[in-house]
């Protein structure tokens, strides 16, 4: 009987604790009512959606470290024109529903800009962001058609979309073949992650394959991407001339491993900028030598900004990740993504004053970004980043990239700068965004007023109530 009593006591205690804690959690959760933007405390809040665990953790970790290290750097340098930055991480493991949950949880703390680092979450948030008036920066990912600011006022696929990326890759292999017309009859295989991220470039590659006459094979790989033997056996049967890899997380290193196992030469593999980083090649070892990737403007290596971070953040023991990580590809990517958000806030502050910025104001700032060579030098990113300027019709800002190759120890640039061919991409953006607007029954905003204002010299104006 004593056992039974003990069991009952245990259960009762557990039930009691559970009840108390449940009531307890409701209290602070209830207190998380919709706070006014930036909580009126004179601080700019950044929600940081990350994934440090799971199949995509190895790639999400350095990005998050770079992102937060830059925020710490800005704080160490005095904040954004005096406004201190606060942030909170939310782990969502690259699962879209958890990502949306993180967004909902953190937005009530007054975030102005969200960077989801997941095309799937971007698709889900594209509907919510305009309602919540929170700007979405999707630097190097997201919806390719969200370049069109008239339909997607709150989406900012800065520095490159997947259509730009795919376009540049085709241009490069065209150049290698001696001209785009020489691509006729060649075979290109796209091994892609079976998610909105991986499917995004297919539209452009199909368009280009029709234009130039190369044969496109698309091979999806299911999450998490560890089973690729059959995919690469198909490639061995198909014998394409080039393989484009649109993978993420462990799918990338597995793809390179399987390429080794099926004898596909690594130097004819091209990974998109999310499949061309150290976590993708180092697990494979020496066999990854020769693997090519797209570099979203920056490669690996330390510039002045990295030195600043090492000096002002890591030296004080506040580094988010290990010091060796500073300067790796994904770290720099996260750092630059963070920088774009901060620059957007700065641009908004030029118009609205040096105070915490709301989401609507940040949207204005991001739509009028002008990061020129002078600013890049001042930031300490000379040679790492190219000038970027957005406007109402162009939320991408810059669509240049180059090719880098892994030599077994580091990434080296092996090509000149390419620019995405907007002659092909613009009509696609126009059609796709028009379809989205029709499906959602959106009233399309007109960019005329904004374009005129951007063309006229900036007048000193009082804060305009939007």
């Amino acid at each position, binding site marked *: 009987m004593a056992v039974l009593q003990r*069991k009952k006591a*245990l*259960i009762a205690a*557990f*039930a009691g604790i559970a009840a108390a*804690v*449940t009531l*307890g*959690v*409701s209290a*602070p*959760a*209830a*207190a*998380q*009512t*919709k706070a006014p933007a930036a909580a009126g405390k004179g601080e700019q809040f950044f929600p940081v959606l*990350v994934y*440090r*665990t*799971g199949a995509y*953790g190895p790639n999400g*970790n350095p990005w998050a470290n770079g992102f937060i290290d830059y925020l710490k750097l800005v704080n160490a340098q005095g904040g954004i024109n005096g406004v201190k930055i606060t942030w909170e*991480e*939310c*782990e969502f*493991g690259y*699962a*879209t*529903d958890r990502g*949306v*949950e993180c967004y*909902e*949880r953190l937005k*009530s703390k007054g975030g102005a800009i969200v960077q989801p680092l997941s*095309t*799937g979450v971007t*698709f*889900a948030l*594209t*509907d*919510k962001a305009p309602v919540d008036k929170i700007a979405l920066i999707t630097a190097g990912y997201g*919806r390719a058609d969200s370049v069109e600011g008239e339909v997607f006022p709150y989406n900012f696929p800065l520095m490159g979309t997947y259509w730009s990326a795919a376009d540049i890759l085709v241009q490069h292999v065209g150049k290698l073949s001696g001209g785009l017309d020489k691509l006729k009859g060649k075979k290109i295989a796209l091994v892609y992650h*079976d*998610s*909105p991220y991986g*499917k*995004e470039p*297919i*539209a452009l590659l199909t368009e280009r394959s029709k234009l130039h006459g190369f044969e496109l094979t698309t091979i*999806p790989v299911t*999450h998490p991407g560890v089973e690729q033997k059959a995919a690469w056996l198909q490639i061995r049967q198909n014998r394409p001339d080039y393989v484009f890899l649109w993978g993420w997380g462990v799918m990338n290193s597995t793809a390179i491993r399987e390429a080794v196992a099926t004898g596909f030469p690594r130097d004819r593999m091209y990974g998109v900028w999310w499949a061309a980083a150290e976590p993708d090649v180092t697990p494979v070892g020496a066999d990854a030598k020769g693997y090519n990737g797209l570099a979203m403007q920056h490669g690996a290596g330390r510039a002045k900004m990295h030195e600043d971070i090492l000096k002002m953040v890591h030296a004080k023991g506040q580094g988010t990740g290990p010091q060796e990580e500073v300067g790796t590809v994904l770290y720099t990517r996260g750092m630059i993504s963070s920088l774009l958000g901060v620059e957007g806030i700065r641009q908004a502050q030029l118009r609205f004053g040096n105070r915490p910025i709301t989401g609507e104001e940040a949207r204005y700032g991001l739509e009028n970004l002008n990061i020129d060579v002078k600013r890049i030098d001042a930031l300490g990113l000379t040679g790492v980043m190219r000038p970027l300027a957005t406007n109402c019709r162009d939320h991408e800002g810059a669509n240049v990239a180059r090719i880098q190759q892994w030599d077994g120890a580091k990434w080296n640039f092996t090509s000149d700068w390419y620019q995405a061919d907007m002659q092909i991409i613009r009509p696609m953006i126009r059609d*796709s965004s028009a379809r989205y607007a029709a*499906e*959602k*029954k959106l009233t399309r905003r007109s960019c005329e007023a904004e374009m005129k204002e951007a063309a006229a010299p900036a007048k000193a104006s009082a804060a305009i109530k939007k």
Partner: protein
Amino acid sequence: MLYRENGQFKSSYAADQQLLPIAQDRWFVIGLIVLAYVAVPALASDYMFRALIIPFVILAIAAIGLNILVGYCGQISLGTAGFMAVGAYAAYNLVIRVPQLNFIVILVLAGCIAALVGALFGIPSLRIKGLYLAVSTLAAQFFIDWLFARVKWFTDYSSSGSVSPAPIQMFGWTIESPIDKYLFVLSIAIVLTLAAKNLVRGHAGRAWMATRDMDVAAEVIGIRPVTAKLSAFAVSSFYAGVAGALWGFIHLGAWEPLAFNINVSLNLLFMIIIGGMGSLLGAYFGAAFIVLLPILLNQVPGWFGIPISTALASHLESMIFGSLIVFFLIAEPHGLARLWAIGKEKLRLWPFPH
């Protein structure tokens, strides 16, 4: 002392057969419903609706469905999320292809389509039982996952594979604000719970329970296994389909095939294990538990001022989840509903000792 039924005499068969024969129960449930319709919208914040209450109600509907299949009929199913996906995509296709239909009608139709699919994948249950049946339902799960990811017609040839329907509009009411969404799903949940309660009280429920306890003996006394098992699959999938449609349209807003993966199925199974198999109340308890737990685990370290990295928090969540499952299975295999029933039993005596 308070929870006694003496003095409550029934003078008609109808009164004797009502759902809640004890007056205290009736008052309690009515009070709960009034609270749910009046107090919760007044007191809860937007965040609580979006993150806690609406997922709780929708998952409770799915958990009721799974409970009917696993708890009442004894057939293991690891493929509930697949049937939720069927409901969600069916509703989406109906909305875009037959837009003039009322959304309630679309929900019912989506549920029926899910029921058909469920009955189809339930056919192996006529030959196999137990763990082997789990494999059959896993086959359903993965096949359905693949189907919606590959057959482009289901996603209306969307290039990204993800779908995002417009907000629901019915009877001139656009369901967009969290309170609207909450009231909508709450009403559906109440109707469906009532239906489930009546089903399990009637002949269908008794046939299911007989099949669960000893299916050969049930067949001997005349309960046809085909009817019992397939109807359990069908009804369970109907509930899962409706829940899936609500999950996609109301909670997620936009979803991709991976939104209904195996983890959702396992979560639903945990819900009914922890809540209590074979009990509708258990479905609600389990759903509340599973929805609250990750959020709790995320917030608690913050209260104690212990800063832990998000990675560690995520791992701790996994570990605590796993150990809680084992703890519940060891301490109370019949789940929280059993604890509730024990509590009610004690309440009959309280405050007297015997």
